């Protein structure tokens, strides 16, 4: 008869390594905010709106990074069926979905004063919108009412297809929109000839946001891991109960 084992519950999802990471990420973001909103000058044509561009590409980058991690983790899950790979894929998609949504929001907010509309069907925004739908699809599938192994396996197939889908969508949308590209919209690209500091800030945005993404990913993964451990503990308990029931039935006869 096995005794139920309850893992000693940790106080939280922190650890020395991630605390350092968290502090670094926070500091990096603080610097980014300072650079973006205080130190850099207003752009000649775009005014204060250019400040969003320090965030937007970095957010997009983390969204696609999340995709790549999810696909790699999904492939691993289909090969080895480990809980960790499924958790990693799921966490990555969750955070990626948030990043994608923020990418779309910053893009849209930047676009409104610039083009006069909230949305344009240009290649990048359209691809990103489809990416969000793909990620939400993954999350919806992961929540279905089925045993955990079934959920994980099916989600892994969707996760596996994320990168190929993104490539296919990007390619088709790219070809499509460059056929109809209006000249004024093409000019919306980030033209930073003006200032070295602006250039640096934009590239630095990638770094800072990547740090934040990593920290979020680790935390989310750990939460999922702890949840899983709690579920595992019940199995021993349940087996014990069932056997007791059997022996009880025996004794009665």
């Amino acid at each position, binding site marked *: 008869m096995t005794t139920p084992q309850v893992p000693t519950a940790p106080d939280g999802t922190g650890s020395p390594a991630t605390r350092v990471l968290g502090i670094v990420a926070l500091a990096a973001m603080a610097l980014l905010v300072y650079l973006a909103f205080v130190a850099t000058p207003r752009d000649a044509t775009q005014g204060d709106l250019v400040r969003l561009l320090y965030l937007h590409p970095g957010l997009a980058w983390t969204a696609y990074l999340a995709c790549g991690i999810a696909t790699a983790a999904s492939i691993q899950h289909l090969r080895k069926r480990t809980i960790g790979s499924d958790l990693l894929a799921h966490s990555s998609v969750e955070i990626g979905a948030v990043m994608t949504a923020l990418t779309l929001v910053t893009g849209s907010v930047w676009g409104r004063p610039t083009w006069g509309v909230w949305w344009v069907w240009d290649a990048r925004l359209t691809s990103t919108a489809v990416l969000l739908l793909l990620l939400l699809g993954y999350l919806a599938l992961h929540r279905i009412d089925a045993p955990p192994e079934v959920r994980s396996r099916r989600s892994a197939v969707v996760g596996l297809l994320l990168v190929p889908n993104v490539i296919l969508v990007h390619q088709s949308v790219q070809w499509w929109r460059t056929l109809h590209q209006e000249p004024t919209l093409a000019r919306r690209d980030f033209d930073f000839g003006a200032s070295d500091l602006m250039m640096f800030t934009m590239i630095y945005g990638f770094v800072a946001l990547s740090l934040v993404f990593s920290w979020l990913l680790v935390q989310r993964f750990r939460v999922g891991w702890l949840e899983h451990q709690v579920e595992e503990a019940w*199995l021993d308990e*349940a*087996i014990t109960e*069932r*056997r007791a029931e*059997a022996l009880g*039935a025996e004794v009665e006869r």
Partner: protein
Amino acid sequence: MEPVIHLRGAVGLLGRFPALAGVDLTVDRSEIVLLQGPNGAGKSTLLRLCAGLLPVAAGSAHVLGVDLVDDPTPVRVRVGLLAHATFLYDELTVADNVRFWTRAARADQADGQRAMERLGVAGRLADVPVARLSTGQRRRTALAVLVARRPELWLLDEPHAGLDQEGRDVLDALVVEAAAAGATVLIASHELDRAAGLAPRHVTIAGGVIVADSAVDRVP
């Protein structure tokens, strides 16, 4: 000779519920075994596990020499499972179903025809879509498919249910013939009088574990 079924502490889960909570069972070739027990004891689950359909959550399980913990897939085509579900396509006729399932298992088409005749579903009945058959006729069709595939291990879940007297007689005869030809038969049944005569060995399961085995003197 290696036993056909060899389970040690096998645990089978239905979702979060341990339907099988540590089963120890050994069955040799050509044995006919009756598996009895109350509702919810785990009879059907045990049959499914032996068929390679249910993952083994803990313990060890070897059926027909295949390690079910490692990869249960090879055992599936070698067993014949008769369950509450019919395993038939409703939209297809009896003949279509027998033909499809026997072809899938690479079995002989002639065996399929003979099985249909033996079970009384050949002739006029063969061209009727399964959806329009009675429960008993569907059972017979499912049984015909099973027989035609010539499995080495028969797993029968309440096989007499839904069959009329004649059907039951045919089933009993088939079981005896199969065992004589080298197949092993495991029958889960409530009908103790009927099945007890058929099976020399009785195993009782309750609460997910084996609690009694009429072959107690065997070495596990």
